Structure formats: structure tokens, C-alpha cells
């Protein structure tokens, strides 16, 4: 008889670690496929390299640590980490960016802490930020959408050259991301409407995902859809995504109301950069976010606030990675101070007074 069954409960819910990881990846699939579609073969190649290297590093670390490789590898967490890194890389980045990213995430982001559940920082965001700081050029070369099989899209061979051969993208294919463009325009003294015009901004295009950006972060629509599906599946709760998006929207709304020519409004922010991807899929990472509902709301609001601050006044055009990492470091503090009230006790843990 199984030793574990010696004690109640003798029933288990059917959501297991593996199933959770599978659902998250399913929810990410539409946005990922869309990203591969609009950025072409190089995106697919980079994505594949990132996934495979994530699995490789996970297996290598487990083997080195003398732990069973198969069960942990099969739980899907390494695959998901690789997936999230792949989604947050510039789609035409060279192959080694994907490999280095996976190595950073799996080794430095996760395994040195002792594996799943032990890390302080979100591995994918750690990798993204480390890459951004170390290889700013490769990490900020954005591609205009050039859907598969369209005239402007590179063929398969050409794509191999781009991803593995270091071939440069054709002129006119690259440009700043909109959010970076707006920032540059501001620094040159142009107003918002002018900047948006020259950047070719249209809300509906941005919302659907027809814009330059990281591989899987462009389509707010598909990401929101996937996120809502995950909520319905009870894999994530509304607390972090909603508080994060609301905070950005409120801040953007407030400043836009104060000075519309210098502060883009909420819709611009919500459909820019990696905000939706982060709100639904990265900030909600179980390991690195607080475990009480109130704590999660504070965490989400903190992420949103830092995103807005960095985007508006920081040195980098996009602040999602930094904001998640910063809030990750506060998670233990939040968890220490924000605890659910225990039945029959007040918030300080003292027994309730009798009426």
C-alpha cells in the first residue's frame, strides 16, 4: 500500500502540475502562432532554438545535481520557461540570444535556487533583462510585421541565414518599436500626436497585434483571450492581471488628462510593449508572486506602477521586465506582512472579542 495514503484526504482534485503547465501553454499558443505568422520563419527558428535549449539546460542541471531527470523534465515547467523567453525576444534575434536566454533563465534563474518553486525572480524576465543589458543592440532590433508567404517575408533559406548566419535584415524591415519611437520623438521635442502619426499608430492595429515588438507580445487581443481562458480554468486568478492593467490605465489616464500632448493615454499603453503578456502570464507566475489575494493585488498594482514610471520617465522604452523583477524581490516582504485573517482572530492574530 502507498505510504502516502496513510492519512486523509483520500481524494484528490484532478488539476496536477503537469496539467497546469499544459493549460498555460495552450493559452499562450494563439498569440505565439500569431507572432510566428507575422514575423515569419526566423521567428519560428528562434522559438524552436529557445525551447530546445531550455529543455537541454534543465536536463543537464538535473543530471549534474544527481536528480531524476525525467519526471521533472516532463512536468513542463522548463518548457514553459523557454516558451515565455521565446515570446519576449525580438523575433529576428540571432540563435545564440535564445540559447543564452534559456541558459540564464534555467541555470541562474531557477536551478541555482534549488529548482522549481525555490526561485525569487521570474526566470524568463531575469533572462530578458539580463539580455537587454548585455546585448542592447540585438535586443532592440525590431522587425515590421512581414507575414509568412507575403512578398516582403524572407524565404526559409534566407531565414536560416538570418537566425543562424547573422545575416542582417533587409533595409526598411527594421525600426524602433512604437513605444521607443514615441520616446525618441519626445526627446526631440515633438508632441504626441505627431509622434503617433509618424510611427503609424492605430489603436485597432496595435490591439490585434499588427505591430513590431517581441515575438509573442504583440497581440493584446489573443493574450487577453488566453488569459481569460486561464481564469475560467482557474489556473490564474484575476487579482494580479486586473490590478496591474488597471494601475497602468489609471496612471496613463490621469497624466493624459493633465497633458494630452506629452502623455499617451491608457489605450496606447495597454496595447504597447509586453504589458498584456506580462500581466496575464508572467506576473502571475506562482512561484514569484505573493500567495494571498490582497498580496497579489498589491503586487499587481506595484508592477503596473513601475511599468508606467519606467515607460514615462525611465531610460528604457519598456519597463515590464524590470517592474516584474522589482516586485518579485518584494514578494517575500508582501507575504510576510499581508496574511489572510484567521477565522476567529483579528488581523493581528488575536482572538476576537466576545460581543
Amino acid at each position, binding site marked *: 500500500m*502507498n505510504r502516502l495514503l496513510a492519512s486523509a484526504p483520500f481524494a484528490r482534485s484532478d488539476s496536477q502540475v503537469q496539467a497546469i503547465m499544459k493549460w498555460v501553454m495552450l493559452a499562450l499558443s494563439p498569440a505565439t502562432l500569431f507572432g510566428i505568422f507575422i514575423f515569419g520563419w526566423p521567428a519560428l527558428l528562434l522559438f524552436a532554438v529557445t525551447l530546445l535549449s531550455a529543455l537541454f539546460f534543465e536536463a543537464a542541471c538535473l543530471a549534474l545535481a544527481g536528480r531524476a531527470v525525467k519526471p521533472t523534465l516532463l512536468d513542463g515547467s522548463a518548457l514553459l520557461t523557454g516558451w515565455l523567453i521565446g515570446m519576449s525576444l525580438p523575433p529576428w534575434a540571432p540563435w545564440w540570444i535564445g540559447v543564452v536566454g534559456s541558459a540564464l533563465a534555467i541555470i541562474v534563474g531557477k536551478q541555482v535556487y534549488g529548482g522549481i518553486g525555490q526561485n525569487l525572480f521570474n526566470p524568463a524576465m531575469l533572462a530578458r533583462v539580463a539580455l537587454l543589458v548585455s546585448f542592447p543592440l540585438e535586443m532592440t532590433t525590431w522587425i515590421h510585421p512581414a507575414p509568412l508567404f507575403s512578398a516582403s517575408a524572407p524565404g526559409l533559406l534566407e531565414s536560416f541565414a538570418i537566425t543562424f548566419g547573422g545575416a542582417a535584415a533587409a533595409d526598411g524591415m527594421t525600426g524602433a518599436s512604437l513605444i521607443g519611437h514615441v520616446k525618441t520623438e519626445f526627446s526631440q521635442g515633438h508632441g504626441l500626436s505627431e509622434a503617433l502619426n509618424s510611427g503609424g499608430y492605430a489603436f485597432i492595429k496595435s490591439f490585434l497585434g499588427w505591430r513590431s515588438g517581441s515575438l509573442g507580445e504583440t497581440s493584446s487581443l489573443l493574450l487577453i483571450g488566453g488569459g481569460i481562458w486561464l481564469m475560467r480554468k482557474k489556473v490564474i486568478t484575476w487579482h494580479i492581471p486586473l490590478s496591474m492593467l488597471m494601475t497602468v490605465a489609471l496612471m496613463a489616464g490621469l497624466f493624459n488628462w493633465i497633458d494630452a500632448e506629452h502623455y499617451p493615454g491608457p489605450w496606447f499603453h495597454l496595447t504597447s510593449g509586453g504589458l498584456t503578456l506580462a500581466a496575464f502570464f508572467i506576473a502571475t507566475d506562482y512561484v514569484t508572486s505573493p500567495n494571498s489575494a490582497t498580496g497579489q493585488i498589491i503586487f499587481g498594482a506595484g508592477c503596473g506602477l513601475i511599468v508606467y514610471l519606467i515607460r514615462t520617465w525611465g531610460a528604457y522604452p519598456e519597463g515590464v521586465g524590470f517592474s516584474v523583477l522589482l516586485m518579485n524581490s518584494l514578494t517575500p516582504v508582501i507575504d510576510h506582512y499581508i496574511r489572510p485573517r484567521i477565522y476567529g*482572530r483579528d488581523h493581528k492574530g488575536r482572538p476576537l472579542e466576545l460581543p
Partner: protein
Amino acid sequence: MSLFSSFWQPKKIRGGVHPEPRKAATSDRPIDVAFPMPAMLYLSLQQHVGQPAEPVVKVGERVLKGQLLAIGQGAISASVHAPTSGLIDDIMDYPSAHPSALPSPTLLLEPDGEDRWIDGLAEIDPFSLTPQEVCDRVGAAGVVGMGGAAFPSAVKLNLGRRTRIQTLLINGGECEPYLSCDDRLMRERAADIVDGINIMLHGLECNKAIVGIEDNKPQAYAAMCDAARPHGGKIEVAQVPSLYPMGWDKQLIRYLTDKEVPAGGRAADVGVLMHNVGTAYAVQQAIRFGKPLISRIVTVSGDAVRAPRNVEAPIGTPLADLLGFCGYQSEAVARYVMGGPMMGDALPHPNVPLVKGACGILALTETELAASDAKACIRCSRCVSSCPVGLLPLEMMTRIRAGQLEAAIGYGLKDCISCGSCSYVCPSQIPLVHYFKYASGELVSRQQAQHKAEQTKRLAEEKQARIDRYKQEQAALAAQRKAKSQQQKRGEAA
């Protein structure tokens, strides 16, 4: 301010899980009352919380159905009566219905097949008794909590009398999967239950009772509503959401009365007393008909049982007989459980007797258990949101693993009710409750050890004090003698 506070009212129900109910196998069949008398009944003297009962019959004595066999001892205990007429075969140690199946003192009764009641059994009008008499008779009939806790009911009623109870809550929740004995009882014997509730109200000198029934038992709800209608205003029947652990008394109290019992306190502190529907029925049988608690309705279920159903069986029946009656395949059984699957006890084998508090006997197969090896915690916080108490199971678990029991207490270990919701939802299959039970047990034994050490120290100190006192006295005496003899000497010299 009132608007503000009504807006910020604490949520009525916190946490909880929705395990697969698995009740359909038994809830649609009538209670089977045709269970044949077993060849031997094993009546444990300790079927309840508190002190074991003391036998008042001798080996070889003939007894009648309903006769007192063992009498409750001390403040918290319950008497044991003969479930049928027959011969006292032995008084010995026999495996008990406990996870360890450790032998405990047990009376063996060999039925004579006549099933002859004691004399003088007659129906009386319960409301002609004084409230104190009602409580005394409930105690004399050996009634205990039938929902699983097996706490002597008379003790609870007396406590209620002393603390001026405003509301009597009757728990018809039956939130554990598989179990349907309360459901069936309410469907088939609602009038008796309502009568029992009235008797309890009379005993408590209280005039408000609320019956809480989960909304997945519409027939039971309808039957109880019908039975309670003539007592409208006094007995209210309410539906509660189907959620585990809705039957946790404090959860039900908060839901039905909006009151929260302070930590470390009892329901009676907020003017509420809770009894199970099965207990109300047992009280009615005891008071109105003078029949002590000698049988109970128990759900026999699980995938290893071919004909699962509710059976009314005499206390002391070997569980193997009950399972055999319902056609179980012993080779398919991965785990025997007494009670429900969420909080019940695992039994190493079914050769233990039925006790008063056993609401279910489950023979579960490997597939039903759905257990696999524990993996690492992924901090998904499902355990946190499912805890009805508001604890942080994952934090307590990490502390206990690291051997830091004090830190685990800081996270509320002592408030844990072992409901198992956290273990149920954990996607990594971590046996969280197992850790908490282990830690609580460890704390108790540490406390005992400390108590003992303190006592030894006190005894040693007392002994030392006695020795010191003796020495002082001796010294004082010696000094006195010396002084006296000196005086004498001086006197002589003078």
C-alpha cells in the same frame, strides 16, 4: 458608516473545495433495515470522546436488548447498551476502529436471536419532562454526536443550558463525498428528526432552531421543510451552498447566524449549539421511546463495493460483515476508510467493530484514491485560497519540514482543523494535512514531556525545600537547646 461597514462585511464563506460528490451510488436507495444480526457484536467501551465506560455486567451474564452494559465515567463519557439480547461472551482487548487498530477494552456480546427488549419500554410525552430530565436521559441513553465527532451529546446539552443558548443549529450539511446517511435519514424520517429537535429545544430551554441542508439535497430539504412547517417560527430549514467543509460547525455558524466564534472559544460562546441530524434522531428515540443508542445508519460505499447503500446496523457489528452484506471485493480494495474520504480514518483492515460515530465505511480502489508521489511545491497558493480557516498551508509545511514547529505555530498551526482542503487541491500532491497532524502530535508530546520535566523539577525542589526546612528546624532546635543549657548553666552558676 453603516453603508461602509455593510459593504466591507467579511465574506461569509471562505475557502472550501468542491470534491466530486460521489453520493449518487447510495443516496437514491432507501435505508436498508434488513441487515441480519451478526454472530457476535464487539462493543468497544471507548466509542466516544472522553473516558472509557466501565462495564456493569459480568462475563456469562444474559442481557436484554437496550440493557445498560457499561456506564460512562467522569464528566465526559457515554454509556454503552446492548444492541440485542444475548450472552456476554467476554470482556477483552479487541482491535478498535482507529487508524492503528490497536486493541482496546471491548465487550463481546453473542446474540441469542430473540432480540428481546428490556421491560417497561413505553412511549412518553417528552414535554412533560423537566429540561434537566431531558438532558439526563440523553446522557443515560449513551447518545453521542453522530456526525463523526462522537462527543457525548448530554455534555453538550448541559453546556448549552448553562450558557443560555439562543440558537440550536442542526447540521444536515453532509459535505463529505460518498456519505448520504444523513440525506436518507432526512428523506425518510424527517418527522422524527423534527420531533428530536423540539425535544432538544425543550431541554435547552431555547426556542429557535435552524436546520442547514446543502443545496445538493433538494429531496431532504423538501422533506424537512414539510416536517418543520407545523413548527414554523421555531424551527427554520435553510439551504446552504454545497461546499466542503460546509459542515464545519464554525463555517455553518457564520453562514447561518453571521456570528464568528473567537479563536480558542466554543460555539456556545456566541450563543449557538450545533448538533447533527442523526443526533436529533437518536435523541428523539431515546426520550420519546426510551430506546438507547444501539444502532445507527451508516453509508457503505466505494468502488470496491458492488451494492453500495445505507444500512441500519447494530453498534458493534464487524465492518467486514457490513461490507460483505453490500458485496465488496476485498482484492480490489486499496484503502478502507471509516468516515468520509476528506477527514476519515484509514483502517488497516475491516475486522474492527462499528462505533456510534461512524457515518461511513468506504472500500476505495486504487483509481479512486488517485494518489501519486508528492512533488515540489510550486507556490501556486491553491492551498491558501482553499483553506476555510485562512491559514497559509504552504508556509506551515515548509516550517514543519525544516523542524521549526514554533514558526509553524506563528502561521496558525493550532487553528488548523485538519479538514484536508489544502491537500485535496495541491497540484503537487503534497500531503499537507499529514504534516499538520504530525506537527500537532509532536507539540502535544513535547508539551507532555515539558510538563513532566517541570513536575520532576518541582518534586525535586519540594524535596530539597523539605530537607532545607528540616535542617533549619534541626539547627533552630539545637540552638534552643544550647541556649537553654547555657541558661541552666548560668542559673547553676548564680
